[in-house]
């Protein structure tokens, strides 16, 4: 797994540093500004892991509250964004792990069943849109975290390749490989749904 515990180096502008500094000192308006600055970023991080908008939203919320609670422990404002992302990622992983633990059988078997029922057993039958999405999420869940994050950043935030590479700390052009492998995996797993996906 890539960079699990080290706070990510996130580039920030000097003005942002000032805002963060006063936020860390307890200025709540400044903290709200920080929330405005980083909420989307955290959302995509969380979403990239949990693949659920509502859960991701809760995670972002909790992350900010935790940051506010523990702001006195952080001295360096430039490390704050990286720290936020780290917290959000860890919280998301907790949620993800919990979900996997609680429903390993249910989800995977359910997915299998879904594939069996709607894919092989009755290929000609059209699948409802929501069901299609459900299957897609299951497929996304099965991807490695890094691939999932890449897909999320591309499709959820609509970022271009170079921005994603920068955010994920990837070397130039590496994203093509990741997206290619992710796409292939998704396609292979969805091989039973060719007809449906083409529609």
């Amino acid at each position, binding site marked *: 797994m890539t960079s699990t515990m080290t706070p990510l180096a996130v580039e920030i502008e000097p003005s942002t540093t000032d805002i963060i500094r006063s936020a*860390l*000192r*307890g200025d*709540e308006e400044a*903290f*709200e500004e920080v*929330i*405005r600055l980083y*909420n*989307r970023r955290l*959302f995509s991080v969380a*979403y990239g892991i949990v693949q*659920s*908008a509502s859960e*991701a*939203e809760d995670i*972002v*919320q909790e992350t*900010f*509250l935790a940051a*506010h*609670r*523990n*702001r*006195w422990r952080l001295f360096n404002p430039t490390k704050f964004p990286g720290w936020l992302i780290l917290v959000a990622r860890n919280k998301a992983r907790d949620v993800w792990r919990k979900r996997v633990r609680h429903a390993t059988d249910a989800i995977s078997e359910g997915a299998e069943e879904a594939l069996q029922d709607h894919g092989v057993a009755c290929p000609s039958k059209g699948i409802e849109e929501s069901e*299609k*999405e459900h299957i*897609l*999420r299951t497929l996304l869940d099965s991807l490695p975290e890094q691939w999932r994050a890449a*897909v*999320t950043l*591309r*499709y*959820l*935030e*609509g970022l*271009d*390749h170079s921005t994603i590479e920068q955010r994920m700390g990837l070397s130039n052009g590496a*994203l*093509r*490989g990741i*997206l*290619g*492998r*992710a*796409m*292939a995996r*998704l*396609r292979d797993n*969805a091989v039973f749904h*060719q007809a449906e*996906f*083409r529609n």
Partner: protein
Amino acid sequence: MPTSFTPSQLEEQIAASVTGDLNETEQRELEVYLAEHPDAQSIYEESQAMSHLLEKTLKRDAPDHGFEDRMVTRFRRQTRQKSGAWNTFIAGLFNGPQRAWIAAVAVFVVAFLVGRTPEPQVLEGPALEKESAKEVKDKAVNIVSARDGHDVSGYADAVAAYITSTSDHAGVEVEHKEHMTQKRSALLSGEAIPGLLNEREENAALLRAASAAPTNVAETTKAEVVNSHFPGAEAQSSNTNSIQTVDTAAAAVETQRKLIRNAGITLEVVNYATVVHDLTQLARAEGGFVSTQNDRTQANGRSAGQMVIKLPPDQLDTFVGRLHEFGSIKSQAIKTDDVTKAYWDTEARLRNANLTEARLLELMEKKTDKVSDLLQVEKEIARVRESIEQMQGELKLWDSLAALATVTIDLYEKDLNQAADYLLKETATLSLFSSDVEKTFQEARSLAEKSEAQILSAQINRGGDDQISATVSLLASPDQSTILIEQIKALGRVNSYVINSERVAQDGQDAVETGTTRKDKVRIDLTLSDEESPAQVTHLDVQGNGVADRVDELKKLAQTLGVSIRSSSFLKGADGVELATMVFRLPEKDYPHFLEILKGSGKTSGITVERRDRVDESQIKLESDPVEIDFNLKSAPSEVSFHKGFIASIRNTLSRSFGLLMTALERVITGLAYLLPWLILGAVGLLGVKLLRRKK
């Protein structure tokens, strides 16, 4: 030119294409390739479909415009509703540049507080008793408060709980409780509850009494509980009645305690005889008596002595308080030994032993068939009997000690230490050289007899190598001694003569101008020897080689020259240095010649000549006077030593550094041990702050 792709390259290109990352050239190349490869084309189409689906699905999940506002609003709600003035203050403390100062101040305050707490004491004896007494007191107070609330059943429960808690102790404590049980019953029977008089079942009695007549029993029991554990404890209750009952009960229990009281007093008096008489009277008046008395009178006419007075314990304080009327008190110590617990323990053990004995006797009456059994039982009875007697003796001793207090008074008259007179003791130590020891010995004895001196000892010692010496000890009367010493000195040549005089105070240490001085008999210690002390001693240090050979050479030479060798030693040190030490004795006339021979052994590194002057100048005979040469021959360190060289240095370095390392390690460990409480403190503090934050 058509481009070819590996499968993974194709995947990358397709993915890049559907995600819009291919530039125009790349896109064209891919399209050409796809047109030629239908398989790739189908992959491309599937990827595109997947990409669409992803876009459609994920876009919907993308945070809407309200997301940001929701975050902020929720944040505001969460933080604002919880932050009070205090929390803001606390949070403010930990933010900003002042937090380092605050941390430092906090650490300082904690260190200060830690320093102020008293040193931890080993809990034993009185400390422990105090602790348990406090516990019991607390319990008792709890019981009272339960009663004050008129909650009878609650009170009964409390009493029951207390009884259960006391019975939790094992062994001796149980016996203790057993004893208490009896006392409790006794106390109960003293109260106005005749129905309970015969009840020996303590717990049941207490519980029943509690429900029947809560007030009386409550007070009694509580008082009893308090006092049996904590004499003199004052119940912390606003109820004055209850306090009074406590006091009465306290007195009742106090008399049952076994307290051994002693006092030791040193008294300086003006007239010894009068005071002894008065003290005897006083003791009698207080209901006591003089147990022992001894007097002694010093040479200066002053008297001193010791009186041991036995008194009823409760009179002790008044008696001691009145002692200052008789003289000035120089020291005073009153001691009370509480043997109550030991006493009760022994009592309980005695009861058990008695029961055992009774059972054994029973057993002996029944089982008369087997002799060995009988013997066994008899042996056991003897053992039990012995311990019973021992315990009875102990109890009796305690009883007698507790029944009467002992006051030991050391009395002495003023100016006791002033010496009445002095004795001047003189000791003359005389050492004589004589060529004929035996003759001189006889002469000295006859001189002593003539001057009527007392001969304490006289003996002649013959050494192994023709050496002869004699010692005579005399006691001469003071007026005769001077003449006698002069006469003895004339018998030979004086080697040494020392007179030691000492003024010894009789009866006491303090020096007083007025004291008279008497001259005691003079002791004369005479030593005769045919060995003259050397008139001159020369220390000669020479450094040379072949020490051992040279020593042999010198020995032979000394023999031919008639020089006697007093001692000779040779040693070889670990560093290869040879050292020979020889002491020669020779007539002074041969001295210069022999010294030159010795110097010829090597390089002279040091020479000192010590001349010893004769006591009696007239007797000096220069020519035949013996002189001594203390000769040291030392070789230069020639051999390679075990302690030198590369390996030795390395080993030395290693061993030394290891020692230092161990010392350092020890200090580090000690330091860590001292640091540990601080670390724990810090961790606890951090946790506390964290919890505080969490709550916020």
